[in-house]
């Protein structure tokens, strides 16, 4: 037990009005903890509080009662005895009359009334007493906002939790509710008030009960708030949003049917408001309330409701033409919010009482006349927009009516369908006549757009109706429904009409007819199987027609697209609803037909369209796709040899398209839809078979394109295969490879490493790589690039040597394959597959000991360490191989790809490779003067500069992301943050080298490498050292501007600079170097060779003007002078930037003209 002294001080501190709110809160918490832990009993506390609760000093008394209330709130979960609760609630109920100390009583009552049953609750008698006291003493509207809120909460709680206690109070209760909520304006209180009305209304549903007599009064109070209109700018400020409030009011409106006589007239009245939001709200409320009020009550408002819906939909429709409408015949509309809500209301009313509403819709003269007026032929394009909007709305009206139930569908059909059919010139089909003989009709009647449009809408509606039933279990027999019989009768003629619409398209381009024709056919074709009107034969005819339309109409892009889309929709429907008969027909007529197109010249359609049609129909389902894949495989088998050996133009084009289709659509589709890897495997196998069986290849330009397509397809196929299949493919490929002329070298000098003869051998050999061999090695490289890390590659050593040989010839895929290999080989021997002969270390050994790197001091490759490497570069023999420059450049590029493979997995070997590149860059410098034996300087430069440039660009290959290989798609091993690591290790080397070198060329090349490194490294890695980086960056800019060939690199560097400028951390460093940066940017603003550089430089200058005034003011004149020159730049974009920048700099001092 706590001693009285302990808690008395808390009580005193709370009651003392001079203590701060935080102290008071702390003392309540302290007391609550004591009570909760039974260190203090409630009785003892109340006894201690005694004086505070009953004193005549109202301030102290109110504090005392509030303390009791707050404590009770905190003790909501503590079990209390019934007697304690009874005496507490009795006391607090009594205190409700004490308006000076009201808040505490309210808080306390609320806390007690809200208690859960398992911890002791207030009895119903006590609750009734609270309610009575509430009604007797509380004048809610005369209180402050917080007290009002508490009162409402109390009332809400009583109504919700003690319905039996409040029920006997009846009329008095409603009187006090009315009195309480009248004139309420605070949003938080209003939400409570609305909820109180909702709960109270549900409590007294009796139409002759007390609520009924007060319904008018209560609604009069509620109705004033509709529609909810907010003047508060931000709803966050008040914790209640407009939508919440509107929702609460909606629930109150819909709480009881007793509100109907008041609510519906009000809402109908608000519909005539000019405020669009009021209309939307009214429709929304009507739509929600109608089902709640019940059909009997709503029946008498039917006429008014219909006329208001008609007004919005028909008389003044507010739909807007959608964006793509131009091409769809100008009949696709986007409905306004009001129309959407009105249609929802209509749908709800149709569900509720379809007969009444249908009487009105079908009996409406305007609508009837409107439809009749469309029974005459007219041209959509001459029709004013409003008429088209009305047509759209009437279509929607009919569709909503027909969709609601079988009975209403029957009525709509009975009323309009015969008229429409007559207008279109249809007669009830002759069932015995199976042929589609031309009916002798005036052609004009078939081009009655308005009727066709409505007809298609109706078809859509009844299809929805049928499919809706299909989803539910009860599946009525609608063959005997009237509409179904009618449709059945007219079906054939309708199809004929849609056919002639399609034919009209081939005559004159009437896109709107094409739209209805195709839509109509699509709808008829997608009725469920059990629905008799569209027999399998008709379905077949529809498909045949669409296919033939697609075949002949390929020059009309719009209708062609529609027809294809319709076929795809039909295919998707069949797949979705498991219609096996139709599926077979679809496959036979559409898919097989399309597949047969692949390898025939018929129809004379552009190949790309053919492939589009084929792929899109294939994507409707797995069985269709498999058929198509079969067809494509056949086509490749048939044409590949022709294309690849003879270079036959058409075959080449075909095979390229098919392969592209594979890599872009078919393979991704199978991956997405969980198909087997068989497709991918087959493709790879076919290509290798074909290559294996042909002996020679003609080298043409298209052949290169074909090779490109084949490589992409091969990569895409292999990367989707499992490890086992990949092994099979790679072995198959190796067999082809080893049978080729590339492979005389089973025991060649390759294996015996460095010898001078090897170099010449290599060059010699590479020179006569035939076209076929290039194909083989390229495809083999593609396979290797896409392998999974676990996949085992046979004869790795030979493969490595072969790739090395090929890359010296400038064969990039080989280099990429080498990169992929070193990236994915297992790193340690014990991790390795038993039969795996090589791990990454051995592979690197093989690669790097090859003699092709000799020219670049390559003995350093193995010997040099990160720090010692530079010292060894004194050998002048490096220039001996000058006549092989192109070979050397290829070697560097190859080495860069290998390095990329290593760098991504974070392998140490990258250090040696980096040193090699640096070595190439530095040779020039460290030789000092050029050797005497060498050619004159010009000649030498011509040889050396490209070499150095390629070494510098190697850094770009190392760090940039490649689409072709070494990315996640191709299963690369990627170590996190590898770019950052490389940046940190290479930067010091580059810096020290630049400092040491004194040759201009070397410096510029070093800076080129530096630029590549910084532009590919993520900014976040560099920003922390921005103040060291910026001077270098500026140096590099000034060095690189000397030569035009660096312009792309300069652009990348300036982008890095602008990124630093924009970064918060970077700005500190920028500030330190502000002068230097500005000077450099001024120079670049006049860079003559590239517009984007000038533009970006000026943008950066503009950003610099935001820096603190004192820093940049000294440069102001200089900048303004430079910018005024830029105002006369030949390029417009630069001038515009200059204007902005000038304004920014001019205004830092004054906005006057006198800059």
């Amino acid at each position: 037990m706590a001693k009285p002294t302990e808690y008395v001080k808390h009580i005193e501190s709370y009651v003392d009005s001079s203590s701060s709110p935080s102290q008071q809160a702390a003392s309540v918490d302290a007391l609550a903890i004591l009570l909760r832990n039974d260190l203090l009993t409630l009785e003892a506390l109340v006894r201690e509080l005694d004086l505070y609760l009953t004193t005549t000093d109202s301030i102290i008394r109110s504090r005392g009662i509030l303390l009791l209330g707050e404590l009770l709130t905190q003790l909501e979960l503590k079990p209390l005895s019934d007697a304690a609760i009874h005496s507490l609630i009795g006391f607090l109920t009594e205190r409700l009359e004490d308006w000076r100390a009201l808040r505490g009583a309210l808080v306390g009552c609320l806390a007690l009334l809200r208690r859960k049953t398992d911890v002791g609750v207030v009895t119903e008698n006590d609750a009734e007493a609270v309610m009575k006291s509430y009604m007797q003493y509380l004048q809610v509207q005369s209180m402050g906002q917080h007290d009002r809120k508490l009162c409402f909460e109390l009332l809400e709680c009583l109504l919700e939790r003690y319905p039996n206690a409040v029920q006997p109070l009846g009329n008095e209760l409603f009187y006090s509710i009315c009195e309480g909520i009248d004139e309420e304006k605070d949003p938080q209180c209003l939400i409570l008030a609305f909820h109180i009305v909702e709960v109270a209304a549900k409590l007294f549903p009796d139409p002759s009960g007390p609520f009924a007599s007060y319904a008018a009064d209560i609604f009069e109070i509620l109705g004033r708030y509709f529609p909810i209109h907010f003047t508060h700018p931000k709803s966050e400020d008040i914790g209640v949003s407009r939508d919440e409030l509107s929702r609460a009011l909606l629930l109150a409106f819909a709480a009881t049917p007793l509100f109907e006589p008041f609510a519906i007239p009000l809402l109908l009245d608000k519909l005539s408001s000019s405020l669009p939001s009021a209309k939307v709200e009214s429709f929304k409320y009507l739509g929600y309330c109608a089902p709640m009020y019940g059909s009997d009550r709503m029946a008498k408002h039917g006429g008014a409701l219909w006329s208001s819906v008609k007004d919005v939909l028909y008389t003044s429709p507010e739909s807007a033409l959608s964006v793509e409408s131009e091409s769809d015949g100008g009949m696709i509309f986007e409905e306004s919010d009001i129309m959407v809500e009105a249609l929802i209301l209509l749908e709800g009313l149709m569900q509720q009482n379809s007969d009444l509403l249908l009487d009105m819709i079908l009996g409406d003269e305007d609508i009837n006349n409107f439809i009749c007026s469309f029974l005459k032929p007219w041209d959509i394009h001459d029709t004013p927009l409003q008429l088209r909007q009305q047509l759209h709305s009437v279509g929607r009206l009919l569709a909503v009516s027909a969709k609601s139930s079988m009975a209403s569908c029957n009525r709509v059909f009975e009323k309009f369908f015969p008229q429409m059919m007559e207008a279109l010139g249809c007669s009830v089909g002759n069932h015995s006549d199976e042929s589609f003989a031309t009916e002798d009709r005036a052609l004009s009647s078939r081009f009655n757009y308005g009727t066709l449009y409505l007809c298609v809408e109706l078809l859509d509606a009844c299809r929805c109706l049928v499919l809706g039933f299909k989803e539910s279990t009860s599946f009525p027999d609608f063959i005997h429904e009237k509409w179904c019989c009618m449709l059945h009768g007219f079906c054939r003629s309708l199809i004929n009409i849609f056919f002639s619409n399609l034919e009209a398209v081939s005559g004159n381009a009437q896109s709107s007819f094409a739209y209805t024709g195709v839509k109509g056919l699509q709808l008829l074709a997608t009725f469920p199987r059990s629905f008799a009107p569209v027999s399998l034969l008709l379905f077949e005819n529809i498909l045949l027609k669409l296919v033939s339309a697609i075949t002949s109409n390929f020059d009309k892009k719009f209708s062609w697209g529609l027809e294809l889309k319709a076929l795809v929709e039909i295919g998707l429907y069949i797949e979705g609803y498991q219609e096996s008969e139709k599926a077979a027909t679809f496959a036979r007529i559409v898919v097989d037909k399309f597949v047969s197109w692949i390898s025939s010249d018929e129809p004379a359609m552009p190949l790309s369209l053919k492939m589009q049609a084929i792929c899109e129909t294939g994507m409707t389902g797995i069985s269709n796709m498999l058929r198509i894949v079969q067809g494509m495989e056949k086509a490749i088998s048939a044409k590949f040899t022709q294309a690849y050996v003879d270079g036959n133009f058409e075959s080449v084009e075909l095979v390229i398209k098919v392969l592209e289709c594979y890599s872009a659509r078919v393979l991704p589709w199978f991956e997405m839809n969980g198909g087997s890897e068989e497709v991918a495997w087959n493709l790879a196998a076919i290509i290798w078979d074909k290559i294996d069986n042909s002996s020679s290849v003609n080298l043409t330009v298209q052949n290169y394109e074909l090779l490109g397509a084949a490589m992409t397809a091969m990569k895409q196929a292999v990367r989707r295969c499992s490890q086992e299949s990949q092994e099979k493919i790679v072995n198959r490929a190796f067999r082809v490879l080893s049978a080729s002329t590339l492979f005389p070298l089973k025991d060649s000098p390759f294996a015996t490493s460095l010898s001078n003869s090897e170099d010449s051998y290599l060059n010699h050999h590479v020179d006569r790589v035939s076209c076929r061999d290039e194909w083989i090695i390229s495809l083999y490289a593609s396979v290797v690039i896409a392998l999974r890390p676990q996949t085992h590659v046979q004869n790795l050593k030979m493969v490595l040597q072969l790739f090395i040989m090929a890359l010296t010839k400038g064969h990039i895929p080989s280099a990429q394959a080498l990169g992929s290999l070193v990236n994915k080989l297992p790193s340690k021997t014990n991790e390795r597959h038993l039969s795996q002969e090589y791990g990454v270390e051995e592979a690197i050994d093989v690669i790097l000991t090859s003699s092709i790197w000799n020219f670049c001091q390559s003995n350093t490759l193995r010997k040099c360490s990160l720090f010692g490497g530079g010292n060894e570069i004194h050998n002048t023999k490096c220039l001996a191989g000058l006549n092989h420059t192109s070979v050397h450049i290829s070697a560097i590029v190859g080495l860069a790809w290998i390095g990329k493979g290593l760098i991504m997995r974070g392998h140490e070997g990258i250090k040696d490779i980096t040193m090699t590149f640096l070595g190439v860059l530095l040779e020039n410098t460290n030789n000092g003067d050029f050797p005497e034996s060498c050619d004159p300087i010009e000649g030498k430069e011509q040889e050396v500069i490209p070499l150095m440039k390629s070494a510098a660009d190697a850094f770009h290959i190392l760090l940039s992301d490649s689409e072709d290989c070494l990315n996640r798609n191709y299963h690369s091993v990627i170590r996190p943050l590898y770019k950052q690591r490389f940046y940190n290790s290479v930067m010091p080397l580059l810096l020290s080298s630049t400092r040491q070198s004194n040759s201009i060329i070397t410096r510029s090349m070093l800076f080129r490498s530096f630029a590549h490194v910084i532009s590919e490294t993520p900014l976040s890695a560099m920003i922390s050292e921005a103040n060291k980086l910026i001077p270098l960056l500026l140096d590099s800019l000034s060095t690189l501007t000397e030569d035009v060939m660096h312009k792309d690199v300069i652009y990348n560097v300036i982008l890095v600079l602008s990124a630093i400028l924009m970064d918060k951390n970077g700005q500190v460093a920028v500030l330190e170097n502000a002068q230097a940066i500005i000077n450099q940017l001024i120079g670049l603003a006049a860079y003559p060779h590239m517009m984007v550089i000038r533009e970006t430089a000026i943008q950066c200058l503009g950003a610099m003007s935001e820096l603190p005034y004192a820093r940049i003011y000294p440069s102001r004149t200089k900048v303004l002078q430079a910018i005024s020159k830029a105002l006369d730049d030949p390029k417009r974009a630069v001038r515009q930037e200059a204007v902005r920048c000038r304004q920014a700099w001019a205004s830092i001092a004054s906005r006057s003209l006198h800059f």
Partner: protein
Amino acid sequence: MVSNLINANPVVYEKKDRRTRSAVNDVDEYVGEPIDQQEIFDHLRDIKDPEHPYSLEELKVITEDAIEVDDNQSYVRVTFTPTVEHCSLAAVIGLCLRVKLMRCLPSRFKVDIRVAPGTHATEAAVNKQLNDKERVAAALESPNLLNMVDECLAPSYAS
């Protein structure tokens, strides 16, 4: 309250869409793009009217056709149309146009600002005032006038 605006209720026209220039991807790096009507118009269209919160374009005070430009001769002539004949702010509008062009065009250009013939009561006087270097310079010495001009030229969201 009696409105003391000169034209209390001006006609507001729609803004034209900003034409996008044809793509410049494959255009030769070294080929110049001369300053043309549209470019000048783009500079001027967003200037705010001195008495209404509309741009000069919306009030049709300037149109693209009313701009003559010859890049080779370094010459620009802008003809503007005040909304009402007796508009006393015509001189201010003209001054805004001149200042804006001074800020946006290279210094080699000679700028000629004119009121469209027959659209203003004191046409000759305004023209003379606007094209007199000394008087323009003097006007810009006046802080009030300069503030007014700067307010009209303040960059709006569009520019």
